[in-house]
């Protein structure tokens, strides 16, 4: 047995291709990004001057957009954790109680938005929220709430909230599926024991389901923060960070800096800070949630 597990050639064959691919598309680019982040360059390969940490000091101390993008990501992450996930947990519990064919059907239906392409989702919501023909404003009209009509994505005071709404709608199915799967792993006798002790309804779930789901919740919170930080496509295709940077996110910002504003060096500095922020967020949310979860 040991001989099989120690097979050096097999280990090499199993690991090398994956590591090579990973190095070529992740590690080398990051090193290259780091190199360009110290230069004042307009596009890759053009001759450029070494400017040290100038891009970084500019970003950290003089660029309010960078901080705004970071703030928006944090708000989005909090939105996921405080709005999307509680709803998903609630629906997972209800779905689990429904049973039978209906359970399967509704589970299938709730996941459908998750399989739709981000391009379709973005263009669809742009139309739905369109101030002239969008269904959303028409609905407000027919409910007699016409005074609330709005250019939802076009007004800087509502754009971020609208974005949050779109993203919660689009990602709800994944959250639901993970919590539902977690619920299926909780043995029935736990509930039986608790109902014998007199717990029922809401109390039963608060005392039994939520604590037993905590490993799933922990992972989901970390994932929610990463998802929020990495957010790009939907924003890029709907508001492109606007109006007036109200929906700015790091990935959108760096993309536009590189490809529209031709500030390639600066964009790479954003890339490097972006990676640092993501690693830091993962580390922190792991640390914070782990200590919580240990009591169960």
């Amino acid at each position: 047995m040991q001989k099989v597990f120690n097979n050096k050639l097999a280990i090499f064959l199993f690991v090398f291709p994956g590591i090579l691919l990973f190095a070529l598309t992740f590690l080398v680019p990051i090193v290259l990004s780091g190199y360009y982040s110290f230069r004042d360059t307009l596009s890759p390969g053009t001759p450029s001057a070494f400017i040290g940490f100038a891009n970084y000091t500019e970003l950290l101390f003089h660029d309010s957009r960078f901080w705004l993008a970071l703030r928006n990501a944090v708000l989005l992450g909090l939105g996921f954790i405080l709005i999307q996930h509680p709803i998903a947990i609630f629906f997972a519990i209800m779905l689990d109680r429904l049973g039978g064919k209906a359970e399967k059907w509704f589970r299938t239906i709730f996941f459908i938005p998750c399989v739709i392409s981000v391009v379709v989702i973005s263009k669809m919501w742009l139309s739905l929220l369109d101030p002239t023909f969008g269904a959303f404003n028409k609905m407000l009209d027919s409910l007699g709430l016409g005074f609330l009509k709005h250019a939802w994505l076009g007004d800087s005071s509502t754009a971020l909230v609208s974005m949050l709404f779109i993203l919660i709608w689009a990602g709800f199915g994944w959250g639901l599926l993970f919590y539902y799967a977690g619920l299926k792993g909780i043995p029935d006798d736990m509930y039986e024991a608790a109902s014998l002790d007199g717990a029922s309804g809401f109390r039963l779930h608060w005392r039994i389901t939520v604590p037993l789901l905590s490993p799933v919740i922990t992972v989901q919170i970390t994932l929610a923060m990463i998802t929020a930080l990495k957010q790009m496509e939907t924003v890029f295709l709907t508001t492109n960070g606007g109006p007036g940077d109200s929906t700015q996110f790091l990935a959108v910002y760096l993309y536009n800096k590189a490809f529209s504003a031709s500030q390639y060096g600066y964009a790479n500095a954003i890339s490097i800070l972006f990676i640092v922020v993501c690693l830091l967020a993962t580390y922190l949310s792991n640390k914070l949630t782990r200590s919580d979860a240990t009591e169960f």
Partner: protein
Amino acid sequence: MSKSTKTILWVFFLIVALVQLFPLIWLVDFSFLSSTEFYSSSVLKWPSDPQWQNYINAWVDGKFLRYFINSAFVTTVTILLTVILSLTLGYAFTRMQWKLRSVFFTIILLGIMIPIHATLLPNFAIFKALGLTNSYLGLILPYTAVSVPLGTFILTGFMRSIPKAMEESAVVDGANIYRIVFQIIAPLTAPALVTVIVTTFLNCWNEFIMASTFLSKDSLKTLPFSVMNFAGQYSSDYGSQFAVMVLTSIPAIIIYAIFNEQITKGVTAGAVKG
């Protein structure tokens, strides 16, 4: 649960499902309207004269078939590579004994946390220098690289739960390491492999940013482009735009309908054992 509670729950779910699917229902509905009907005051509208022409425009001018074939090819190759690499990496990380195991495992897992968008700029420069932009490989390589970390993570979680006795009896029967991995371990990890396949499928099939950065040649473009190309060309013809959006969504929904059960099983297995 009493029958009446069940009925209330059922009705509640039905309403929520309708609300949640409303945007898609609206999309399908309006894809059959002519642009003049868009501005009427009703939220949904029964098409008086269904505009099938919208779908013909979508199919022809959206270059639907060409882009569909590109998407299918890129996605299939990516899934194959992802499965093989995640399986072998996962096995090497859980069972094989070697010195740098935990170091390499951590490096691979970094891929889950590092945003792909942060590597977009340098990758564009590298791919351009290597002549990989405007090639299928220019999409397959980064798509696989993004999918492997998550795949490896899911599979290592699953493999840890497989008893070692499986391999021991195989060794006694004279199987070598490659047969063990591909003929014994691979079938045993099937539920987790399905999760890997489905998440990889959804990510690649719908991916847009990398594709739009690395591709400019029309003959190589993937399905999301049929929507993007259309927006400019038919800027005021919303009916045709909506038709192309409906067409683009159908393949993914069909695939999902077929594998729906396995997706849940796979996620359940992952959530319980991972």
